[in-house]
Structures are given as C-alpha cells and as structure tokens.
C-alpha cells in the first residue's frame, strides 16, 4: 500500500524551490508570503534560506538535514540576500546556527548576504543600491528575500508606486521572495484616504498579488487557539503564471496545518 508523502512542498514535483527556477536565465519569479500577529513567518524565511542554499528542508526531515546535502554555504545551490526591514542579523543567527550550521557570530558573507534596513531613511530610488550592486557583481544565481518591506514605506515619504517600481526592478534581476503583514486591521479595500496605513498596505498587497507567481498565507486557526496547532499555511497560485523554461512548473495548491515548538522546531501536517 502506497502512502502520499506528507512533506511541505510548493510544487507538484515535491520541491520547495525547484532547481529549474534557480537556473532559469530568462524567467524571474516573485513569491509572496504573508503573516499576522500570532503567526510570524520568520521560521519560513529560515526554511527558504536553507532550501535555496542546501536544497534541503528542515521541516521535512530534521535539524541536521542540511548536513546530508552536496551543497554548502561555500558552494550554494543559490546565493541568498536577505533585506530585512524588521530584524537584525542576530535575530536570524539564532536559528541559522541550528539549521544552516553557521557560526554564532556570523555576520553574513557573499553567499548569504544580509542587509539590515530596519532604520533606513534613504530615498526609495537609492534604497536598494547596495543590494543591486551585490546582485550585479554575483556570478552565481541569486535570490533576494525582502523581510517586511512595508515598514519602509509606512514610515517614509514614498508612494506605493515608487516602491513597487524598485521591487519590479529587483525582480527583473533576480527571483524574489517577499514577506509582509496581512493582519485584518491593515486591509480594507473600501478605504479611500490614501494617507492612511490601511490604504497604503492594502494598495501594496493588491499590487504585489497581481505580480506574483505564488502566494503563501500563514494564519491562525479560525476556531481559536490550540496547543497542538499554531496555524495554517495556504499555498495558492499568484496572478502571473510561470513562463519560459519553467512554464511546466505546477503549484501544489494546498492548505497545511503547522506547529511551531518552543525550541523552534516546526512540523507541517496535511489538512
């Protein structure tokens, strides 16, 4: 009797980020993952970093699964650049030590770069300048992860269109993954005042959804808090399909239950 593997995967091939997507010379993807107050997505960021560098996923095996990979931080599957508007590198280091095997004092390197823009006040057209420079100088394929970029445009004088232009430019250079907040209080499609936080975040999310290939939503249980389930992850297709060399990629649209433990380990279950 065969049984369906209950692994966390974003594609029908059973992969999280497929090799074809990393290797593609012409197609650049944009994935969006949204979280809310009770379901922080930081563990998913670590999962993506591990998968991009090593090709493994600690959620599907164990904390040391990266050790079995033929890839390493010195020889990665894809270079990763994290641009965080919320956390410093020390926040991620705590989990990277366990799941990526880096040194506790790790401050980033050319294969796993980190830009802390949590207090960035630069004009939007200069905001990603160092990131773009790092991308252009790289000979290996790169993936950029933007961690809660809404904190920039909500605290600086910058229109959503200007910000989206910068994101589109980044996306034209590389694959990008964007994590952002989607709390119910931040979204109101009927909000008319363009200066409010709700209007700006709603506009950002709507525009992002319309230019992404995949959307992941981390939400708490609708039935209330449970000790054995943290929340749900819903994987769905974005508005744009995969094209060119990766046109055959099929999104594994699915909803999972997941549990984050106090020590940081994550388990994902089929729903």
């Amino acid at each position, binding site marked *: 009797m065969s049984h369906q593997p209950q692994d966390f995967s974003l594609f029908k091939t059973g992969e999280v980020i497929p090799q074809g997507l990393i290797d593609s010379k012409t197609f650049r993807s944009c994935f969006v993952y949204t979280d809310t107050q*009770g379901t922080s997505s*930081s563990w*998913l960021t670590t999962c993506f970093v591990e998968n991009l560098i090593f090709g493994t996923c600690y959620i599907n095996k164990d904390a040391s699964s990266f050790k079995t990979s033929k890839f390493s931080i010195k020889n990665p599957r894809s270079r990763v650049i994290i641009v965080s508007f919320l956390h410093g590198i020390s926040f991620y280091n705590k989990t990277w030590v366990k799941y990526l095997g880096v040194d506790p004092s790790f401050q980033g390197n050319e294969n796993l770069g980190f830009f802390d823009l949590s207090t960035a006040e630069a004009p939007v057209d200069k905001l990603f300048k160092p990131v773009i420079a790092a991308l252009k100088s790289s000979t290996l394929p790169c993936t950029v992860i933007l961690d809660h970029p809404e904190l920039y445009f909500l605290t600086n004088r910058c229109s959503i269109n200007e910000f989206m232009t910068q994101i589109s430019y980044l996306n034209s250079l590389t694959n990008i993954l964007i994590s952002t907040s989607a709390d119910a209080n*931040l979204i109101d499609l009927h909000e008319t005042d363009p200066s409010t*936080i*709700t209007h700006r975040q709603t506009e950002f999310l709507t525009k992002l959804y319309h230019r992404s290939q995949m959307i992941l939503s981390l939400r708490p249980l609708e039935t209330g808090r449970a000790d054995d389930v943290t929340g749900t992850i819903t994987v769905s297709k974005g508005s744009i399909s995969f094209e060119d060399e990766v046109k055959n990629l099929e999104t594994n649209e699915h909803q999972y239950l997941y549990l984050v433990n*106090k020590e940081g380990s994550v388990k994902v279950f089929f729903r």
Partner: protein
Amino acid sequence: MSFRRRQEVIGGTPSGLSPGVNSSRNPVAGGPSRGPPVSPPSRAPLRNTPHVNPTGPAPGLHNRAANNDMLAQHPGIRPSTITSQPTLSTGSADLDRLLTHEGLPLGNSLLIEENGTTDFSSVLLKVYAAQGIVHNRNAGKLNTHVIVIGSDQQWGRQLPGVYRGSSKEQKKNKVATNESKVTVGNINDSNLKIAWRYGLKKDSPSEEFSDHSQTYPNYQHAFDITSSLLPAPAANEMSFVSLNVPDYSKVMLHIQRIISQHQGKLIRIVLQSFLNPAMYPPQLIQHNQSLNFIKSLRHLLHNSPNISLVSSINLDLYPRHNALVTMIEMLFDAIIELKPFPPELVQMMERIYKNQPAKIKQGFLNVLKLPVLSESGLMVIKEMEYCFKNGKKKFEIEEWSIPIDEEEEERSTTKDIEF
C-alpha cells in the same frame, strides 16, 4: 562584676542602627517610614559612588566588555528559563512568570495596552522603574539607570516602596528581631523556645518575596503601592526625557546621551501613555513619526545588551482595530492587554464572593505577544484566559475561571423540585 539591663544587646550598639542589622535581608535602605528601624537611607554614598566616566573609555569593544561584566554581576539579572538570555524582573512576580522567561529578556520591549479609563498600566510601569532603583539601593552602588520618557520628577516621587508585610506581620517581625538579639533577658528566660514554637523566628515577609530563589535572592521584590520609595530617585538614578521637541530625533539623541553617560549600567526605559495627546504635542502623534520613533527604539534595544523598555498605550484613544496600533504592536517584542471587567461582571463577582473578597478580580489580562517566542513563530495569543487584581502588595495575575452563582443554582434546583 557588672550588671546589664535585660534588653541591652550584649556587645552591640544601643540602638537598632547597627550596620550589621541592615544586611542584605533588608535590601532597600529607606523604605516606607512605618517599616522596621533599618539603617537610614544614605544619599551620600550614592552620590559618592564613582560614575563611569562618560568621556573616558571610547565606545566600542571596551564598553561592550564593561556591559558584559555588569550583566554577569548584576543582582537583578538572571538567565531566562527558556532561552538562557539575560533577563530582568518587571517588578511584578506574576507578570515575570506570565512572560515565561521569569522576566523580560534584555534587549526586548513590553507594551501594556489598557482599555477604559482605569490606570492599572501605570502601576506596572512604576514597579518596573522602582525595581531598578531598589537594585541600586540594595547593591549600595549605581548599577541601574531608569530613563522616563514624557514625565517629570513628580512621576519619580510616586514610585512604590518595597512591601514589608501587613501590620500584623510587621509586629511579629519586630518581636522576632528583639527575641533574636542576644540580651541578658533573652539568655535567662526561655523566650526563644516560645518564639520558635509560635513560628516567630521565621523569615520576614519581605524576605519571602525577595528570596524567590536561593540562586537569585535579590532578583525581584514585592512593592507596596500605598507606600513611597524613600528617598525618591536621585538624578544619578533616574533621568527624564522631555517631549517638548519638534520631532523624535531630539528625543532619541537625548536618550542616547543618557545611555552613553551610564555605560556599564542596566538601563530601564519607561515610555508612559504613548501618543496620549495630553502629553504628546500634535507633531509627535503623526503615524509615520511615531512609528519611526518606535523603530529607532527597537533598533537601539536590539543592538544593546543592557537595555529594556516597557511602554503603555491607551486603547480608548487608539483602539486595537486601528492600523497604527497593529504596526506599533508589530514593533514590540511582548504585548499584554488589560481589560477591566464590565460593571455587571464586577457586581456579580461582588455578590458571589461577598465572603471571599480575595477572589474578586478587576479585569481580564490578554497575552498578545511574548518575548522571543512570538517572533520565532509560536502562537501565544491568549484572550480571556487570565485575570488580574491590583492589590496593595502585588499585581496579581491568575488564570480566569467563571464565577459560579450558587444561589442561582439552588433557586433553580428548588424550582425543579417544586415542579
């Protein structure tokens, strides 16, 4: 042969002002005036304690090393029970337990949200500040500095003193102290045995609260909100940052200047009634300005191993469904919400617990975020699972249980039988 009076202490000074009496068992010099006769609080030693020269060591590695040394020796710091990070007490033992780390890990911030017109959050802010001052007094040297944003010296004078037990306990304590002295009278009669039999020699109540753990005896204290911390915090223990400025950059500069003047100390920052129009000028209430300020504070905290922040916000002015509050919540590491009971529930509890007043609580306490755990993805939101009561000796937090109206039950049972 010489004769001594029965109550004269053998080999001791005539009054109770011996330095030996005021050992670490009486941690706070100069508590409430109605307390036992401990040695008087001396401002002089505090003033004479050498400051860390702000112009001396250059900021950088040397200061970091000084901070690490301080963290290792500070009586008010212990490792978190979950992550082993250095953690400080919020001044409320129940809140420390609720935060699951036995306190607030350093470099983290706590936001206290409050509904209604009550002001329970200010009690928590005051005990948080008072705890820092008590550590100064207890150690006899300046190891903690409190920065209060938006309030003046008057606020500092309202800090509560250390709880020394009920009047009955204080009397018992006084008798026990007298009995334990080696006097001619005590040696001759068998009072010691009687004192032992009636439990008079047990530790004082203040010790019960301060000695929660043998390993960290002075980590946390209980505070009596009806008393005042005496003497009031001096300028070298507490600084005040004014909000009469055109923008928050001046506030941040002021905070950074104070921190650099107090290198090698634990810094507790108090941000009271954030965005309250009574305290904040209109230009500081704009959402991008206020979010930028919290972002800067967060950056400061996450890059400093010796700073913590506790803030309060009124939800009547800024309800939780307001997007600004959601964004502010995103930038804090821990959040609790105080929700006083509606009047009907208060009346019902008073009726049901008329013979057990201790069981009457004052409101719900919702947990929205916990330090470290929430950011790592754990779902910790607990609404209407805890309740609180602001008592004289402590801010009690307990699990909430719905009160059962036995009279109502009896009435319905009787009716059933009659039917």
